[in-house]
């Protein structure tokens, strides 16, 4: 690992530690039953039921989900996370394909840009929760390439609905970022628009696509979890968060264990994009970026 890589891992560990420290600090100074400002319940409760100790949360990870099971809950949660991760990955890939296609179309035909981009922007004003029941109800109603439409496909599609947006916008900007001199050079070779796209515009767009993909990865996870929660798709971490919440009064650390699982899965998908970034940018001039 490079020195910079080690530095990042250490910084991440420090950030985790500081986060836990603030949590515990608040438990010491914050009011047990919270408080209100101007009648609004704004100050969080610091009692053990609302905010369990960090070490209790960690300890809970080692206990089984319920007394009837042997398996420690972290493994159960990992299973849920893995299920959600796969849906989010499919959603991200679909989002990348849809977003890139829109960007290419918009870059090719300015009329397409003017016709499509307003719809793209407007699509993001529709709340996902409003769409989710509709899309999930598609299951079993039609076939795609001989495959019957499954529930999980609806969930991934909803994730793609969120994740395609940054990709479309970022890629379009990237495709337009090729320097005029380079475009003129391709012109001087009488290269077709498509060859210019492949040889010049796409490679030039990568530095714009990668940050967009990072955003898309997190949006895809959010999309899957929200869809799981709002449509009752079982097997994923979204459902686990809800069902653990229902037993929170007796087992307050349990929902937090599920939240940790969701965080790990988000980081996992983000990590995949970072790996792709490192691979794609390995020969580029090094620039500082987050």
């Amino acid at each position: 690992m490079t020195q910079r890589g080690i530095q990042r891992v250490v910084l991440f560990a420090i950030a985790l530690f500081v986060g836990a420290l603030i949590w515990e600090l608040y438990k010491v100074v914050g009011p047990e039953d919270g408080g209100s400002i101007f009648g609004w319940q704004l100050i969080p409760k610091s009692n053990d039921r609302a905010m369990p100790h960090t070490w209790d949360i960690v300890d809970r990870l080692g206990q089984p989900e319920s007394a009837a099971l042997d398996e420690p809950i972290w493994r159960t949660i990992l299973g849920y996370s893995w299920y959600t991760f796969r849906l989010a990955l499919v959603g991200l890939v679909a989002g990348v394909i849809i977003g890139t296609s829109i960007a290419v179309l918009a870059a090719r035909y300015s009329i397409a840009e003017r016709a499509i981009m307003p719809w793209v922007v407007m699509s993001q004003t529709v709340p996902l929760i409003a769409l989710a029941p509709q899309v999930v109800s598609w299951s079993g109603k039609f076939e795609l390439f001989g495959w019957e439409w499954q529930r999980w496909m609806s969930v991934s599609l909803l994730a793609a609905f969120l994740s395609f947006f940054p990709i479309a916008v970022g890629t379009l900007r990237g495709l337009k970022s090729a320097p005029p001199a380079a475009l003129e050079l391709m012109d001087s070779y009488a290269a077709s628009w498509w060859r210019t796209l492949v040889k010049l515009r796409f490679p030039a767009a990568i530095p714009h696509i990668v940050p967009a993909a990072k955003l898309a990865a997190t949006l895809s996870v959010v999309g899957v979890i929200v869809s799981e929660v709002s449509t009752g798709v079982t097997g994923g971490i979204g459902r686990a968060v809800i069902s653990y919440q229902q037993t929170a009064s007796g087992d307050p650390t349990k929902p937090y264990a599920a939240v940790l699982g969701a965080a790990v899965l988000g980081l996992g998908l983000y990590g995949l994009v970072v790996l792709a970034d490192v691979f794609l940018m390995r020969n580029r001039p090094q620039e500082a970026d987050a």
Partner: protein
Amino acid sequence: MNAQQTNTAHTPVAQTVIVVGVSKVFNVGKPSEVSALTDINLTIEPGEFISLIGPSGCGKSTLLRLIANLIEPTEGAVSVNGKTAAQARVDQDYGMAFQQSGLFDWRTVQKNIELPLELKGWDKSRRAARAQEMLELVKLPEFARHMPWQLSGGMQQRVAIARALSAHPQLLLMDEPFGALDEMTREHMQAELLQICDVTETTVVFVTHSIPEAVYLSDRVVVMSPRPGRITEIIDIDLGRDRDQDTREDDTFYSSITVVREALRRVEDGTAGVRPRSGIDDR
């Protein structure tokens, strides 16, 4: 289009570039309409080195782009190698180099040089062999696997020249290729360019705003004036073909510089009051 074809029929492959009665107006019919070139006539023989010099706005880059068929003339015709400029572009009859080397960051030096060959559909081993040949020509044989951003400005410009020449075009079009280089590197590159053109027998059209650069490199210097851009004089430079760094000390070199400078002064006088400063580089 007709004029172009007739013209081609009358003149076989003898001349590399023929520009006949060319005018260029940008933004025709709009309030921003501007006449960039008026009644340009220019014939360039094979193997010649021609510089286009003049104050900014004189249309020298526009003329270069017309020859390259990157833009179409409003009037008149351009032929290259006995074909229409459009056909010459499709056939990759010329190579181009710009002030910014315009190398692709994500390609190695070798892959950059191979770019025009890729577009021609050459296979991998043939491309690699040609790239190596070009790297030796520009004296960078050991840099094939480097990335462009690891090279100095002068080296990048050499790679750009290698790329421009990799398909062995007979014509090289250069738009202030050494404009961004420091003086020492620039003189070195000029000498090297002359050697390369000598070996490859390439015809060159070279846009510059430096008088010594134009004189040192050229067989003929085309002096242009702005608003609208036109050719005012074409000056023969009598320095022979064997030029080296000592040529810069030559009396003929100095006297030629004076001749070009005076031609440019006349250009300025003609537009006096419109443009008090010419933007001509007197280095």
